[in-house]
């Protein structure tokens, strides 16, 4: 995996320097491939605070910690819920596979003292009442959509590609998404989600990003459901990369022991 990551990093870096001058325009698919393959490190850990704000300005806050490890074939993620109090010590684990298999998911409910396998079919469900679906929080493989480069434009002083992605699966919850990808680091800066009537549903914007342990990392992001005027802001804190999270972190024992 180290070799692969190093390869990706080296490839990406050389492409950043080389592509715009010699290959001309990238296609929409190439751009989204670069976004997907942006090196993220072999593992990531940190805390996450979600602030949900409704159209009356009322706020609800959820905090959790998460650990992610990717060996190239399998990405394992485990989340430990901290607040609100009624979900404290609940944990959620997801294994997703690069070969396209359905994810495996488990939830540990401390009241029942039982780890339960759950269906990963609920990717359209909203995560903890937020404006993010489980699918929004994951890495959607670019092969699942057709991509078209619409234009290039500058947003908030940053040169961006604007790419429209249309799902190949007609049953997908969005009819299309439009993504603003920063040219210099291939991070998505902004994304619009359109519902099944092709009407703007949600807008995702990156509020803060930085290099953490050598990797471009999103540190604050905001999702606004424009139809319901409901907003979710996610802040990532104490983010650490490549600290060597052991495999034992992603086990039933870990789920029951908690953070």
């Amino acid at each position, binding site marked *: 995996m180290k070799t692969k990551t190093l390869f990706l990093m080296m490839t990406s870096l050389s492409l950043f320097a080389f592509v715009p001058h010699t290959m001309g325009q990238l296609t929409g698919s190439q751009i989204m491939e670069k976004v997907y393959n942006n090196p993220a490190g072999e593992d990531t850990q940190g805390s996450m605070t979600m602030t*949900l704000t409704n159209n009356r300005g009322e706020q*609800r*806050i959820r905090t959790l910690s998460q650990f992610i490890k990717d060996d190239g074939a399998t990405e394992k993620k485990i989340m430990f819920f901290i*607040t*609100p*109090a*009624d979900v*404290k010590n609940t944990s959620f684990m997801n*294994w997703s*596979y690069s070969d396209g*298999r*359905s994810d*495996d998911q*488990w939830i540990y409910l401390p*009241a*029942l*003292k*039982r*780890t*339960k*396998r*759950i*269906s*990963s*079919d*609920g990717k359209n*469900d*909203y995560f*903890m*009442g*937020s404006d993010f679906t489980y699918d929004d929080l994951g890495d959607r493989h670019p092969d699942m959509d057709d991509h078209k480069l619409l234009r290039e434009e500058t947003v908030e002083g940053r040169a961006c590609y604007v790419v429209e992605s249309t799902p190949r699966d007609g049953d997908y919850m969005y009819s299309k998404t439009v993504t603003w990808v920063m040219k210099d680091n291939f991070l998505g800066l902004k994304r619009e989600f359109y519902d099944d009537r092709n009407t703007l549903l949600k807008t995702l914007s990156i509020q803060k990003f930085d290099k953490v342990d050598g990797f471009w990392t999103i540190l604050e992001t905001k999702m606004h459901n424009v139809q319901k005027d*409901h907003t979710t802001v996610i802040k990532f804190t104490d983010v650490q990369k490549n600290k060597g999270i052991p*495999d*034992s972190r992603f*086990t*039933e*024992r870990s789920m029951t*022991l*908690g953070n």
Partner: protein
Amino acid sequence: MKFIRPLLILIFSTLAFTAGAQENISISGFVRNYTGLLTNEEKDWAILQNTINIVLEQKNEKVAFKVNPYLYHYFDNDFEFGLREAYIDLNFNNFNLRAGKQQIIWGKAEGVFITDIVSPKDLSEFLLRDFEEIRMGVTSLKAGYYYGNSTLEVVWVPVFTPTRMPEESSIWAPELPFPVTPTYDYSTSEVRKSLDNSELFIRFSSMGSKADFEIVGGYFWRDDPALHLTRIIDPVSMQLTGLTARPEYHRMMMTGMSFSMPFGPVIIRGEGSYNSGRYFQTEAQTAPDATIEKDYLYYMAGVDYTLAGIRLSMQYIQEYITNYETGILNDQFETTMTFLARKDFLRERLWLEFFAYAGITHRDALIRPRISYSLADGFDIQAGANIFTGTEGHFGQYNENDMIYMKLKYSF
């Protein structure tokens, strides 16, 4: 004497909170008001209960502890205080030792107890308490060895704890299948607290991409006593004039397994056990004390599915007595099904749930619709009903106990 326990709790809680402030001990729990009304003609209160449940925890790299005291306060100023759990953990790299009172939950079935045999049950309100309150902690030593995603657990329970049954005056006291009211002989109703009478359980479990499974075994005491009967017959009329019931607990052995696996968008669950050493009531005249020892199988097949955001779950459960003999009061096959439908609205603020046990053998059921609304983070209001149908069986025997209820719960 009546006030000693609450006083102890107050002192304990004060000390605990003080300790929490000083030693960075995590404190959580809930406070709850629970009001239930029978819907019979008398409109009796089924329950008026206030609860405080406190969880004190501290976790270090190698050592952790948890103490979970609870207090139920009833309308007649009766108090019930207990420790749901109180244990110490010693954690090593691939090994864990937990000593103390602990709830141990095994198996994949929901709402039924097939291989889930370690923690005894509190059935003082039948099956209506929340599941975390139905499971009683059991004082035990649990050793766990962890290898990858597999776990081997051995549990030693030095002292047997039986099922907690409702008091005789309770509306949840089960019907007894006797033609006359028996007198009780409690001379054999205690299991002596000795090393020889301890219990042993073992479980191997594994979690993986294709499936999760558990293999379990146990050598233990059955949590419910067998009632050995002595019939008093009038020598002239040859009619039954009296009964003496002698409750006695018996040793059992169980082996079983459970699994859970994805099949497309569906989760399939299964669980089964083979049990030996249970005594069943019988009317056969060849059984002098009206009991007979039989082995039995207990198994479940279930599916979980999400449709249009509604979580659906169904289980088919069956008990089968092997080498069945005429006269045994239980049916050879006893079949139950469970159904669950659950959906959230308003961004997980409002929950609607329908859960039902359906007794196929006795055509009885327990139907439990409920609605829950989160007024604020951690503060829920819940309203629901417990509806019993049928005239016999596990659920039908309570057909006069239909109730509606409301719970206010604040989690902290």
